[in-house]
């Protein structure tokens, strides 16, 4: 029973956070300076009528919310308008139907653009995250097991350096190196590849993925290594490890059967919390390698002041991070029997 209450608690908290983000996202773009319509279409030849037409098209002519005509500059309006006819509720209503307006720049629905790009980002994060976790955990384990030896100090130093590297700079350096060694320098596939058989198409994508994934792995591996090291050191000084040793288990058995699971518990939480920061790294990597994912979309939208896309991308990223945090909580409750049955 306790477990269900725990899960319910976590789920409702995630929902609350998502609603908070949606509201923040809506008002952020209306409180801060810059008329969305004019910022999006910066053409001096536009007449007043044209601008008004654009405003009508994007629904910007409606009051933002009851009593407020606009928030920047603050202009009070009638409080008796139908709430369903305000920008806020139209936005919410559309969002519920999966509709996130139309891009200022390409005229395509934002949902369509984002769903196209989302998969590419997940591919990159997935590959990088898996590699970073594997190598980070392995190095961290080794380092903790061989604590206070040259191996430990060596991998500590490497991790700290890797941690201090700005993601985009590492990407730039790897890209520079790769471009001199025949690696593809931009995008996720060679143009014209679509006429080739599927297998060589995949090979092509893998080749394009190599450097971005490597960047991701190096940057996040160091952190996982440090966390794993300190977590495992804590576990290895617990009494039950001494029990396991007294039971005549080998070092390998003790690590495998008694230490790793326990040491992984904090890592699960941190990996999830990290996903928030990981998104920051992915934006940089995608920009450097022109990887057509959410991050690049965000930066492009930013440079074109394409607010609907920017707003949509931000919302999608935030929701994804909140959901992965929730997932971590659920995984934690599954891994740690103390949560499961208390």
């Amino acid at each position: 029973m306790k477990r269900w209450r725990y899960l319910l608690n976590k789920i409702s908290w995630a929902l609350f956070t998502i609603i908070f983000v949606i509201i923040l996202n809506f008002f952020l773009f209306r409180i801060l300076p810059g008329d969305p319509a004019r910022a999006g279409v910066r053409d001096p030849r536009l007449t007043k009528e044209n601008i008004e037409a654009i405003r009508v098209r994007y629904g910007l002519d409606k009051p933002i919310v009851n009593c407020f005509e606009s928030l920047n500059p603050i202009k009070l309006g009638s409080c008796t308008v139908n709430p369903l006819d305000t920008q806020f509720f139209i936005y919410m209503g559309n969002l519920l139907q999966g509709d996130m307006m139309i891009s200022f720049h390409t005229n395509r629905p934002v949902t369509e653009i984002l769903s196209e790009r989302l998969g590419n980002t997940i591919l990159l994060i997935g590959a990088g995250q898996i590699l970073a976790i594997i190598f980070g955990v392995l190095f961290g384990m080794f380092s903790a097991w061989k604590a206070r030896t040259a191996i430990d100090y060596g991998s500590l130093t490497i991790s700290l350096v890797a941690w201090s590297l700005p993601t985009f700079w590492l990407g730039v350096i790897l890209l520079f190196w790769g471009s001199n060694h025949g690696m593809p320098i931009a995008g996720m596939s060679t143009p014209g590849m679509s006429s080739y058989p599927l297998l060589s198409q995949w090979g092509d994508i893998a080749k394009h993925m190599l450097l971005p994934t490597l960047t991701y792995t190096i940057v996040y591996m160091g952190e996982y290594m440090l966390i794993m090291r300190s977590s495992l050191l804590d576990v290895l000084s617990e009494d039950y490890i001494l029990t396991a040793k007294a039971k005549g288990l080998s070092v390998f058995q003790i690590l495998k059967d008694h230490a790793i699971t326990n040491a992984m518990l904090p890592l699960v939480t941190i990996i999830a919390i990290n996903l928030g920061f990981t998104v920051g790294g992915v934006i940089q990597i995608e920009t450097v390698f022109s990887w057509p994912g959410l991050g690049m979309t965000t930066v492009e939208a930013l440079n074109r002041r394409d607010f609907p896309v920017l707003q949509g991308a931000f919302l999608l990223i935030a929701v994804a991070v909140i959901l992965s945090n929730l997932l971590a909580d659920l995984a934690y409750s599954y891994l740690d029997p103390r949560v499961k049955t208390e």
Partner: protein
Amino acid sequence: MEAQIVKPTQATTRFQDFWGVFRKNYMGLVGLMMLVSAILVAIFAPVLSPYDPSSTFDVTTSDIYNPPSSTHWLGTDDAGQDVLTNFIFGARVSLTIGFFAAFISLAIGGVFGIIAGFYGGRTEEVLMRFTDIMLVIPDLPLMMVLIALTKPSIINIIIVIGALYWTTTARVVRSQTLAVKSRKFVLRARAIGAGKGHIIRHHILPLVLPILVVQAVLVVSSAVLAESTLSFLGLGDPTALSWGQMLNYAFGRGAMSTGAWWALVVPGFGIVWVVLGLTLLGQGLEQVLNPRLDTHHLMPSRPPVKSEAAKRSDEETLLEVKNLSINYVNDGHAPARAVENISFTLKKGELIGLVGESGCGKTTLMLGLLRLLPSAGQIVNGQVYFKDQELTALSETELNKVRWRGVSIVFQGAMNALNPVRTVGDQIAEAIIQHLPDFDSKNIPGRVTDLLELVGIAAEHKDQYPHQYSGGMRQRAMIAMALACNPEVVIADEPTTALDVMIQAQILELLDELRKKLGLAIVFVTHDLGVVAEMCDKVLVMYGGVTAEYAEVDTIYNMPRHPYTQELLKAFPDLTKPKKKLSSIPGYPPRLDALPSGCRFAPRCPAAFDRCRTEQPALHELAGDTHIVSCHLVEASK
């Protein structure tokens, strides 16, 4: 007058104490030097840089992306400017933004943390929930949106970074405030009616400050990284050439295609230098403020020192300990002699009591028997035999076959002696699988149930986790596990401390029963003489790591010869003489790193004379070799 003189000295000593420890932390020291050098470069930029960064009038197209040369040591950039000059002046921009942004977020985080921790209740709830939300929202996208919607200027960048990087600080400061709040002097200050502002300023802030310093180091590095990232993404102040901005221009304006690596490497090096310096400094400070021992149970133990084998006793013994000595290596100091020259024998079905105050080496001796000592511990003399095997000479692999199969251990307190994430039944089965490979795997669950029932735990608890057990159940489960492979010797280290009296009695009864039923030999470590009198065959009284007295239980109770044994018995209630006054031994056992030069008990001994303080007594054998006493008085009367 006096108080004024004392105060500054105290402050300096506190700083000197800190510096004394920090000085030896290479990681922190290197980090500090890296940071200071970067700050010096920023301050003395005009002196250090070879060119004036603002002069661009004589630049021609041929100056663009020139490789490093004698006129431009680090080459030129996309605008034909000297990279070294821009690098040096870039330090100013990057560091200024980093420090100011960090200052803002530390202020926000500090205030939130202190208010939440100090006031508690609803205020805390609201503030911390808000912090949680901010922690989940990905910060780079949010910063990008905020800056895109405002204007990319230095001030805006500082404000945005400062406004987003306070979450961790708020959490850390809150928990520190909570910890400080319940300390005595704060409670006292509240009791005498000190105002809240006063308490926060004078009592809480000084103790939160060290944590804020560590946080500051981390936040500055995050801020420097954030600024460079934003600039690289084209959201920096176009008029301020920070390292990130230099990279943005180089990357966006053809450094890649012209092969101008210097324009890409140099500014990045600056960022890495500052961030790495801050990271190292932060790690160093953390290590100094929260020192932790990087030791654990799997670190390789020191191999026993080979010593000449003493003659073994002729009897059929299961466990025989000969002149065993164990030291703890103490970096730079003389080793602590935790156990010295201990000998005893144990036969089938026998129960030996190992008695002494806390800190007299009982646990060390017990761990030493199976070579389970922590990495600083080392057997420096003597042997341990299990039947015909010399445990002190076996390899780790050979030893693993004796551990639990031949000799098993019931650990003290069993609270954490069971793995919290595996069921109790599973942990018992593990021992069987490990040591009895011929055991039919179908019968293992049955065997586990039998073992649990043997110690009075119902079968339905088999698949439960340790946290679902009560303290007494855990202790009994530990005993069940110790019996899983039918060992011949069980070492029980104070198996009943921290348990209530009823359960203590149950467990002792159980052990005694098993001894009679299975012919188990038991080494029973305890400081409870009542238990010893009731159950043991032999008693080894230890004091300060050495044998005080070793004899049959009757001899110990009726004819104790060592003053320590005598004093211990006086401290123990005798039911036949209920009116007798109980006495306790004044003083404390010796510290192992500062042992007295003579008899270790001499400082507390009521019968000590001059010789006791200078010469350590030998082990004297009385009544054949069945009664051993280490006391000068015995020699005198022999």
